[in-house]
C-alpha cells in the first residue's frame, strides 16, 4: 500500500469491557479417542477420557492433557499449535479438522467428542497415518515453478490481477484434511486427490510458469481431475478456507479448453 494513512488519535475512549476478559468458563468433556497400538493390540478400539477443560482450550489441548497427565502412549502429530504447519489433521466428531484450530467450547459437550485418524491413508498408530502416498501425489504434479525463458536480472513482474488468480491455492499447508475427506480417495487410493490438484492449480494459473500444459496432461488421467465427483467434502474440510472444489473445476475447464 502506498497511500499515506492519517495518524490515528493518540488517545481514544475505550468501550467498556473491551478486549474480552471475565472468567474463563470451565467444563467437563468426554474425549473418545480411536486408539490403535499395533505393538500391543491387533485392532483399533475406542477409549474414553473424562477431562476438565477451559473455554480457550482446543482439541489439541485435550489430547495433550491425556498424553501428559494420563496416558503417555497416546500418539499424534502436532507442532505449531495454531493451524499453520498442517501436522494435526484428524477426524473430530466425524469431520476432518485441525485439532489445534478446533475450540472445545464450540463442540457439543453433552456427547463424547470423538477423535480418530484421517481416513484413506494407512494407519500407523493412534492418530498417526502414513503420509507418504499423499506426498507422492503432491510430488507427481510438478509442484514447482518451471520457467523456460531467460532468467531476468531482477524480479519477474506480475500484476495484482494475475496474482489474484492463484492466490487462494497458495495458502495450502499440505495437511491432507481435504484428500482424506474425499469419498473417492477413501475407496480408490490411487486418485491424485484434491490437495495435489490444489497445488497444481497454484502453478497452472501462475503467469510466470511455463509448465502448465504438462501438469494438465498429468491430471488428465484416469486418476486425475475427472475422478472428482464434486462432493465438496474437501472444500468443507480445508482449514485454510481454500475453495478446493472451485480450484478443481478450474483445472477441469483448463484441460477442456486446451483440448478443444
Amino acid at each position, binding site marked *: *500500500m*502506498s497511500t499515506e494513512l492519517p495518524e*490515528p*488519535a*493518540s*488517545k*481514544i475512549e*475505550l*468501550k467498556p469491557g*473491551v*478486549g*474480552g*476478559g*471475565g*472468567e474463563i468458563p470451565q467444563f467437563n468433556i468426554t474425549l473418545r479417542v480411536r486408539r490403535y497400538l499395533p*505393538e500391543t493390540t491387533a485392532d483399533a478400539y475406542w477409549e474414553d477420557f473424562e477431562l476438565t477443560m477451559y473455554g*480457550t482450550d482446543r482439541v489439541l489441548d485435550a489430547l495433550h492433557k491425556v*498424553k*501428559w*497427565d494420563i*496416558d*503417555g*502412549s497416546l*500418539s*499424534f502429530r*502436532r*507442532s*505449531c*499449535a*495454531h*493451524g*499453520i*504447519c*498442517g*501436522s494435526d489433521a484428524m477426524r473430530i466428531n466425524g469431520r476432518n479438522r485441525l485439532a489445534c*484450530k478446533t475450540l472445545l467450547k464450540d463442540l457439543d459437550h453433552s456427547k463424547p467428542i470423538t477423535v480418530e485418524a484421517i481416513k484413506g491413508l494407512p494407519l*500407523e*498408530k*493412534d492418530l*498417526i497415518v502414513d503420509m507418504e502416498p499423499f506426498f507422492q501425489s503432491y510430488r507427481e504434479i*510438478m*509442484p*514447482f*515453478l518451471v*520457467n523456460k525463458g531467460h532468467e*531476468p536480472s*531482477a*524480479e519477474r*513482474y*506480475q500484476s*495484482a490481477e494475475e*496474482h489474484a488468480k*492463484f492466490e487462494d491455492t*497458495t*495458502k*495450502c*499447508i*499440505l495437511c491432507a484434511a481435504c484428500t482424506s475427506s474425499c469419498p473417492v480417495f477413501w475407496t480408490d487410493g490411487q486418485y491424485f486427490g484434491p490437495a495435489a490438484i490444489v497445488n497444481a492449480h497454484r502453478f497452472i494459473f*501462475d503467469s*510466470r510458469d511455463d509448465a502448465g500444459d504438462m501438469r494438465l496432461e498429468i491430471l488428465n488421467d484416469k486418476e486425475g481431475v475427472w475422478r472428482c465427483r464434486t462432493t465438496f467434502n474437501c472444500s468443507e474440510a480445508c482449514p485454510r478456507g481454500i475453495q478446493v472444489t472451485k480450484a478443481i473445476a478450474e483445472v477441469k475447464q483448463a484441460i477442456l479448453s486446451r483440448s478443444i
Partner: protein
Amino acid sequence: MQVHKYDVVIVGAGGAGMRAAIESGQRARTAVLTKLYPTRSHTGAAQGGMCAALANVEEDNWEWHTFDTIKGGDYLVDQDAAEIMAKEAIDAVLDLEKMGLPFNRTPEGKIDQRRFGGHTRDHGKAAVRRACYAADRTGHMILQTLYQNCVKHNVEFYNEYYVLDLLLVEEDAFREDGTAYKQKRVAGVVSYDLATGELHVFQAKSVIFASGGAGKVFKTTSNAHTLTGDGMGIAFRNGIPLEDMEFFQFHPTGLAGLGILLTEGARGEGAILRNSEGERFMERYAPTIKDLAPRDIVARAMANEVREGRGCGPNKDYVLLDLTHLEPAHIEAKLPDITEFARTYLGVEPFTDPVPVYPTAHYAMGGIPTNIDTEVLQDNDTVIPGLFAAGEVACVSVHGSNRLGTNSLLDINVFGKRAGVSAAKYALGAEFVDLPEDPEKFTTTQIESMLSSTGTERVAPIRKQLQDIMDANVQVFRDKKSLTEALVVIEELRERYKSVSVQDKGKRFNLDLLEAIELGFLLDMAEVMTAAALYRKESRGGHYREDYPDRDDENFMKHSMCYKDEAAATEGIEGIRMETKPVVFTRYQPMERKY
C-alpha cells in the same frame, strides 16, 4: 543400527535447512534429516515479511539496512556479517521470486514492500518500506517455495528422523604460535527414526545444523511445540560453545494468554498499541517511530504499562492492539490470517474491537557461533572443519542483542545459502572422518535408560514448572534475584529429570520418549540462558537487567560464550564456563540507541 554415507548431511528442513539443501543438493550427495515433515517446520509460521533494500516503493539502500540492523541489535552485531546480510538480501529476495514465491505486488507488478519495526531511511530519519511480503504468510510461502524447489532438485529427505547426537572426534593440533590444542572434526550424526525406533548413523564430510530455535523453554511463546533447542543442546553437550544465549527476543504482540503471534506487519500497516486508558503509549517511549520501534523497546514498554497498572482486562495483564481505524478491506487484503487468529482463538473481531496482546517469547538471538561462511567455531576463532550452522540455531551475530523484524527470514535465506555452498565445497575436497567406535553408544544408553527407568517423574510436570519459572523470572525484566531463583528451580528440575520415565515403551512413533529427550535439551538451554543472563551485568537489547539498567560498553561490548565444562563454575553454576568474544566493528561506532 544402520549406517549411511553422504557428502553433506543437513539437520533440519526449515527455511535455513532447505535453502542450504537446494545449493548443496546440486553440488554434492546430500541428505536432509528432519524431525518433522519439511513443510511442518516453524519457518511456515512467520508472517510479516523479509526485508531487502530493493527500493521498489521508496528510496532505500543496503547500507541503511546494515545500519538499522546494527543499531537494532544495540551494537552487539558483528558488522561484517550484517553488511553481508544486508547486501545479499536483495539477491536472496530475487532468488525466492525466481523460485516462484508469490510476493504481493505493487500496481506496476513489482514486489511490494511494507514497513517493519526498526527499519528506517537514512539512519533513523523515518520508517521505511523494506519488508517484502506475501500477505501475512510470508514464512509459509518461503517454506513452501523452498520445499517445492527441493522437490524440483530431487533432494533426499529423511522425514521424522530425530538427530540426537553429533559425532565429533578430537585431534591434537598446534596453533600458529606453537601452542597445542584439541582440534574437533566432524564425523557424522546419530539419528532416531520415529516410525521404527531404529537408530541410524549418518557418516558425512559436512554437517549443517539448521534445527531452529528453543522457544519452548518459555510458557508463553510463539514457537512450535517442537522447537526445543535440540541443535543447540547437541552442540553444547559436545563441547561447542553457545554464543549470546542471554538474548532472547520477546515479541510484543502475542495473543494474550496464548502467545500466538500477530505479526509486527500489523503495526507496519498502521495498527497501534493502546493501554487501558485508550492511550497510544508508544508515543511516550519512542517519539519518532512510535509503535514501529524495535521489539525489545515495545515489549518493555508494554510490560511497563502493565506493571504500572495500565493493563487491560480483569487481571490488568495485557494491552490492546488497535486496528479499528484501518479499512476492513485493507486489513483483509494484507492481514487475513492474523485477523482470523484473533477471531478463532480469542473470539475478538479485529475490525471493530482491539485485540488483547502481550509479549511472547519469540526468537533466540544466540546460538551456535559461526563465522560469515557459516563454519562453526569451537572457540573464539578456531573453525571445526566440516561443521556448519545456519538459521535460528546459529549465531553469526547479525542480530546482536535484538533482532529486527524480517531479519530472520532474511538470515535463513542468506546464511542458509552460504551454508549449502560452503558445506558442499568443503565436502568435495575432503575425506570422510572415521566414525568413532560405537558411534551410537551415547544415544542408545540414553534411550535405554529412559525406557527402562523405574523412576516416578513424568515429563510434563517438569516441563511445565520449567516454563513457568522461565516466564516469571527470565522474561522481559530480569535481575540477579529473579535469575538466581530461576537457577535454583532449574537445578532442582534437572535432578528430578534424572529419574524421569516414559509410559510408552514401544518402538513405533514413540513420541513419549522423544518428548523426554527434548526436555533434556530444554533444561540445558534454560540453564545456559539463565547463566548467561546472570553473567551479563548490563542492559542491552533484549536483555534488560533491572539491577543494571544501562548499557555498559566498557565491560560488556562483547559476545558471551558459554561452554560446558565439568571442571568450571560461573556465577556459582557448576559445569558452565563463561568466556567472551570481541564484537566485529567495521564502520559504525556505538551510539546511544534512541528512536
